[in-house]
């Protein structure tokens, strides 16, 4: 049984003009110790998906259906109080985008980590502080710096503190939402290496949300490509990068430059991502797709399963990939 299994999940935001269909029929599995990358452009619903899994949504969010099974137990049916005490942070935690700016400037870093522990575990403050120091060591910061304030740390180190905080209660799953976006490339490489090390050391499962496919190829085993609230292609990192099947995935991969390998002409995807308030009928990618025909304009494509952990949502899969 997978550790986390998301089935047909739908979460819409209610706004004056209707519903923003941010997460629209999302299905995927995450095994223990596995790293899943969720890739997509801004506004495709990838961050909303993370918020939905933890049920930390704004008041206008409506979960319209589906299930989120954590070892068989549906988080969507769980009482909020139990979810807060037993699941959030203890089983699943999150490192937010730009998280390094989320530390409170007037508290010592060690105290802030200890606070997260004390909220979930029945231990004394001293024990929690000891734990905080251990966590700092785990993420590569000298434990003596627990008494420092956030402004005494660099951006990369603050990001490490946020990762330490996410690990405070020994979760099974850490969701990292754009964990390296604001960081310089060398610091980014250091943080990616830390995530990799922690994963193998603690047998963590990781959900990495990013727009940068290079980062996913660096640390993830599986990839879900999201477009307009849907996962349009899902598979192992190797398959997705070496043999992408969906026209959108193909477009994304041929749009990114690489520092290695032969230099090639970059292709862009014409048009812009759709408005999720009124997504196009049929396949949401059809207005930008070179293969689209009348079926694509009217019918939502079926999920075509190709083996145990690979699927793609496309009407024209054979035509696209005949080459």
């Amino acid at each position: 049984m997978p550790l986390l299994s998301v089935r047909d999940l739908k979460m819409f935001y209610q706004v004056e003009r209707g519903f923003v269909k941010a997460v629209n029929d999302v299905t995927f599995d995450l095994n223990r110790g596995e790293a899943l990358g969720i890739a997509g452009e801004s506004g495709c619903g990838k961050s909303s998906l993370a918020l939905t899994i933890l049920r930390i949504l704004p008041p206008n969010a409506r979960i319209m259906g589906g299930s989120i099974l954590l070892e068989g137990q549906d988080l969507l049916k769980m009482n909020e109080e139990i979810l807060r005490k037993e699941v959030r942070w203890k089983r699943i935690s999150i490192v937010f985008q730009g998280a390094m700016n989320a530390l409170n400037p007037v508290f010592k870093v060690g105290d802030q980590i200890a606070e997260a522990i004390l909220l979930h575990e029945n231990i004394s403050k001293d024990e929690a502080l000891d734990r905080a120091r251990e966590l700092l060591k785990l993420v590569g910061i000298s434990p003596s710096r627990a008494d420092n304030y956030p402004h005494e740390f660099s951006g990369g180190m603050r990001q490490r503190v946020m990762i330490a905080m996410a690990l405070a209660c020994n979760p099974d799953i850490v969701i990292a939402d754009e964990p390296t976006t604001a960081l310089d490339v060398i610091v980014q490489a250091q943080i990616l290496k830390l995530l990799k090390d922690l994963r193998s050391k603690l047998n963590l499962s990781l959900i990495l949300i990013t727009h940068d496919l290079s980062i996913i190829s660096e640390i993830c085993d599986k990839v879900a490509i999201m477009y307009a609230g849907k996962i349009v292609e899902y598979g192992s990192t190797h398959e997705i990068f070496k043999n992408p099947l969906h026209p959108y995935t193909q477009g994304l991969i041929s749009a990114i430059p690489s520092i290695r390998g032969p230099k090639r002409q970059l292709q862009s995807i014409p048009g812009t991502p759709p408005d999720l308030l009124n997504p196009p009928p049929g396949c949401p990618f059809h207005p930008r797709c070179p293969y689209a025909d009348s079926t694509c304009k009217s019918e939502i494509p079926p999920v075509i399963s190709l083996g145990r952990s690979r699927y793609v949502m496309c009407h024209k899969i054979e035509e696209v990939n005949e080459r």
Partner: protein
Amino acid sequence: MNKTLIRVENLKKWFPLKRGFFASLFGSEVYVRAVDGISFNIYEGEIFGLAGESGSGKTTTGRLILRLIEPTEGKIYFEDTDITNLKSKELKPYRRRMQIIFQDPYESLNPRMTVYDIITEPLRVHKIGEGEEERLELAYKILESVQLIPPEEFLYRFPHELSGGQRQRVAIARALILRPKFIVADEPISMLDMSIRAEILNLMLNLKKEYGLTYLYITHDLATARYICDRIAIMYLGKIVELGSMDSVLENPLHPYTRALLAAVPVPDPDIKIGEIPIKGEIPSPINIPSGCRFHPRCPYAKEICRSKEPELKEIEYQHFVACHLYSNGR
């Protein structure tokens, strides 16, 4: 291609640090040495990349060249004319020929102006075009050049009605309408979505051909620099540490910092992983610049001389310069 369009000599920009009243009475002035003595040429028709991490001084360099800020020291030449000390009136004809594209198209366009007003404002400033009709014609043409087609559909829209990629095209159109020779593109794609970045890069390459442009491309992203640059300079804490053709810097990086930077770039291929990053820590503050070679506290090869003497930028291979004592024995 060897005609020099822009030449910069020993350019410096030190920003004075604001301090308390008493601190400023006793004790000397403290400066942020954002750009600390750099020299290079940009040839006509090339794309010259300026790469480095945040705080390396690359954006400040771009602004200095355009005279948007005043240098503390050094000289800037545009086609052999020293423009360092030109007064604003004398500078105006040069301003027309040097333009900039900013990083964030969500910030750089006035939300209350229509696309037409935005792209024709430079014409009004420089008093080009007899009346609105001629300006309208120029606006049409330029929108076609940046592929906002058909132009009439975009002319009277406001920035909020456009996507990020379209906004950046408007910003490019605004820079182009004066028919400049030289454009500083300061991280022009870093705020855009992946699928749109390639489109803007390809547009910049096409416009370069169509209008005979020269670019200074400022970036932290070496993968996109590889895609469009002919030559590149790597900056660290206000200094150029390495300069050469894009290919030679990529294939044979000389400076330990350049090597670390290149090693840290993730590759969109699951078979290639980031190796060991040979350097530790993060870029220090440009207020307390280390003595000698400013990279020495992070450098795995630092020797005694690196702590005391600042290395000069020297040509080690043909047209490939590096500022590092490792190469000081004329290798």
